[in-house]
């Protein structure tokens, strides 16, 4: 469609730019990438002055030009789920949009297509949890027996997590209950006397639940000048690890 001339065109363009940015943020992009993508798209479509501000929970963008005046839109972001596949395609889309200036209908269609890309099913998810748990049990020095038990517990964690997530339960409570189940199973396995260590098993299971990546990423955000987002993520990471530790501690009190 080329550059936005009328006010309506510009409004639609900004809406889609924000949609791309919001979806990137949800799938795990860093703040600077989100702000940069929106800025580039708006500039490509003929905005003369673009101001974008984003934190973990909102994006606000204002564009202005002689043709369409000043337009501000904002977007509230709910939750986040690492989905690197989606991030990859959104990044390609945003590059493509900047280069070819396609119609807004086309952009909307592409966005819908990206949203419908395949995800791993719950059954595959169980195998993934098993793989992660057993790998990290070995990584932290567990024996082969520990790894096998850890894999079995990984499958159970997914089985506990699926119904809780479907109930739309508070996510801190979900991690707490998952870790409670994992710790109880690990202690039970150790008490049967087949010679496995509950510590090594648990550390493998914890790697699934612990927000280690969130913790490292929030320090990265803080260093690269997005202090507010870094701090909110830091608080989240601490609270999540507290709720996981609470689940494990509850078992040792029993």
């Amino acid at each position, binding site marked *: 469609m080329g550059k936005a001339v009328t006010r309506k065109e510009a409004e639609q363009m900004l809406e889609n730019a924000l949609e791309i940015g919001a979806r990137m943020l949800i799938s*795990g*992009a*860093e703040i600077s*990438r989100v702000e940069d993508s929106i800025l580039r798209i708006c500039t490509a479509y003929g905005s003369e002055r673009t101001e974008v501000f984003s934190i973990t929970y909102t994006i606000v963008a204002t564009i202005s030009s002689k043709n369409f005046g000043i337009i501000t839109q904002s977007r509230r972001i709910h939750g986040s789920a*690492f*989905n*690197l*596949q*989606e*991030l*990859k395609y959104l*990044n*390609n889309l945003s590059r493509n949009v900047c280069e070819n200036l396609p119609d807004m209908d086309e952009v909307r269609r592409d966005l819908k297509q990206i949203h419908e890309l*395949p*995800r*791993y099913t719950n059954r*595959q*998810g169980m195998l*993934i*949890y098993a*793989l*992660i748990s*057993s*790998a*990290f049990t*070995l*990584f*932290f*020095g567990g024996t082969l027996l520990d790894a096998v038990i850890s894999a079995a517990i990984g499958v159970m964690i997914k089985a506990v997590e699926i119904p809780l997530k479907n109930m739309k339960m508070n996510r801190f409570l979900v991690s707490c209950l998952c870790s409670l189940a994992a710790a109880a199973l690990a202690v039970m396995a150790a008490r049967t006397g087949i010679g496995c260590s509950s510590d090594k098993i648990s*550390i493998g299971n*914890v*790697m699934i639940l*612990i*927000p*280690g*990546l969130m*913790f*490292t*990423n929030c*320090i*990265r955000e*803080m*260093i*690269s000048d997005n202090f507010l987002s870094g701090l909110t993520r830091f608080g989240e*990471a601490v609270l999540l*690890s*507290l709720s*996981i*530790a*609470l689940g*494990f*501690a509850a078992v040792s009190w029993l």
Partner: protein
Amino acid sequence: MSELNQIAAAFFGALGFAFLFNLHGKEIFYTSLGGCLAWCVYLAAGFIVPQYGKQYFAAALFLGIYAELLAVRTKVPATLYLAVGMIPLIPGAALFMMMQNAFKADWEQFAQYRLEAFITGASIAFGTIVAAVCWNIFKNYWFNKK
């Protein structure tokens, strides 16, 4: 021998997270390879400077450069390689031990693990940021020359 086991486990751990982050196709292999190589660098750095902070820094620096190189080659965001490659490095165990000691009210151990988690997290963050900054300088220099 235990090092070899660890490297293999790091690969499979990263592989698991590549699946968990919903990657498909050939990226699964290259992202987890990054994690595996980063752990190799961590272990190799241990022979020169046996301090975990510096070791993590070296590993993250390597990972950052690996991510930027492959991002240019395969035209995907570097975040993909960073997020998966970081998995073997992240201070998950330290973070967990820290909180568990808080519940046991063992404040000495708590402080020690808190420091470890913080140093590890900060080293990794600094490593990847230094890599990104160096890469930008290098790229600008190279493109301006052309």
